């Protein structure tokens, strides 16, 4: 479970994540009311040149956004049917700029840095008596168990194919949900047996302990 981040140490990688996020939010707010097409084209050229400053690797990132292009063509088509294709063109240009800029921040920022940059948002949790550690635990649980659930679905699907000779079926989602619920019971018990999330938090700020506790609990499940 890894993101589609670019590896590397370009100037955009070195820029601190909070700075990039603030620039992105400020840029988004500034471009949102713009409707002038030539100005939007200039912005688009600017964003594309930022991609180009990351060389071939950077330009390759643009390829991953191809599915979006079809969506934009579709919306442009709807505008055309409604006879408002000029508004549509500015809207599509603006969307392109915003999406490309947001994607640029995502691909040049490691997930850990991104989480750390957003962590201050969780600080108010303390005021209502919640530990800000809890979201961190929840995040590691999701990252750990999304692939496990995919694996469970794979086994269910194999068994179904062996029984019926047919390909996968939506019916398997019911046993998948049941397995997920059972597994979550086991993990919750394993967690409280190890002192709960409070106990894990006391082990240190970082989460290697969490990781170990969770690995143990999955091993027990066998």
């Amino acid at each position: 479970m890894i993101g589609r981040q670019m590896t590397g140490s370009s100037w955009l990688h070195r820029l601190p994540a909070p700075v990039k996020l603030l620039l992105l939010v400020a840029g988004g707010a500034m471009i949102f009311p713009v409707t002038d097409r030539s100005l939007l084209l200039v912005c688009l050229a600017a964003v594309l040149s930022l991609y180009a400053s990351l060389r071939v690797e950077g330009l390759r990132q643009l390829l991953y956004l191809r599915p979006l292009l079809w969506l934009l063509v579709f919306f442009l088509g709807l505008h055309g049917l409604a006879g408002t294709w000029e508004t549509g063109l500015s809207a599509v240009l603006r969307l392109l700029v915003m999406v490309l800029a947001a994607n640029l921040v995502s691909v040049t920022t490691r997930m850990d840095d991104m989480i750390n940059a957003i962590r201050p948002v969780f600080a108010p949790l303390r005021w209502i008596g919640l530990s800000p550690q809890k979201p961190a635990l929840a995040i590691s649980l999701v990252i750990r168990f999304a692939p496990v659930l995919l694996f469970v679905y794979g086994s269910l699907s194999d068994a179904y194919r062996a029984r019926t000779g047919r390909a996968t079926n939506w019916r398997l989602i019911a046993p998948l949900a049941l397995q997920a619920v059972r597994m979550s019971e086991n993990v919750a018990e394993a967690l409280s047996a190890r002192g709960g999330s409070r106990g894990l938090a006391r082990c240190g700020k970082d989460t290697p302990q969490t990781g170990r506790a969770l690995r143990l609990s999955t091993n027990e499940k066998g």
Partner: protein
Amino acid sequence: MTDRSLVQIAFYAALIAALGLLPQFAIPFLAGVPITAQTLGVMLAGVMLGPVRGALAVLLFLFLVAVGAPLLAGGRGGLWVFASPSVGFLIGWPLGAFAAGLIMRATRRFKVLPSAALAALVGGIGVVYLFGIPGISIMTGLALTEAAIGSAIYLPGDLIKVAITAVVAETVARGLPQALLSRA
């Protein structure tokens, strides 16, 4: 919040992620429109976990998407999805899960199947489209009616997901009654 609730929230967030990454379901009479099971996970979270935990599970999932985990259907992820025309639908997801949970709770005297179907229909389609369609309109400059027409291609798939949610909730309620936390 107890540790148990925290783990449940995390597991449903993981379930939403896993459902989005499953191979797309072949639904015969909908050739051409990709149907992924991701919004099924959103409906299930509200129906199974109840309003607060269901909405939190969806929010947790969206947070991971925002920080760059490629968990949205088709392996999408990163900040750009929140700048795309579908952002309204993403905003509608946690609110839809919340509404679905509320409806499950309010109709606890009914049988699970009709109650879950109603919850998924109102929360997973009604509330989600209520935010999704204006979202398209704001982001693309289309009029609301055109945005609604454009979204209508997803409606048959979403109706099928409502039916699946109801059947899954019924099955889980039979196999593991205490797992239907929205009514616990």
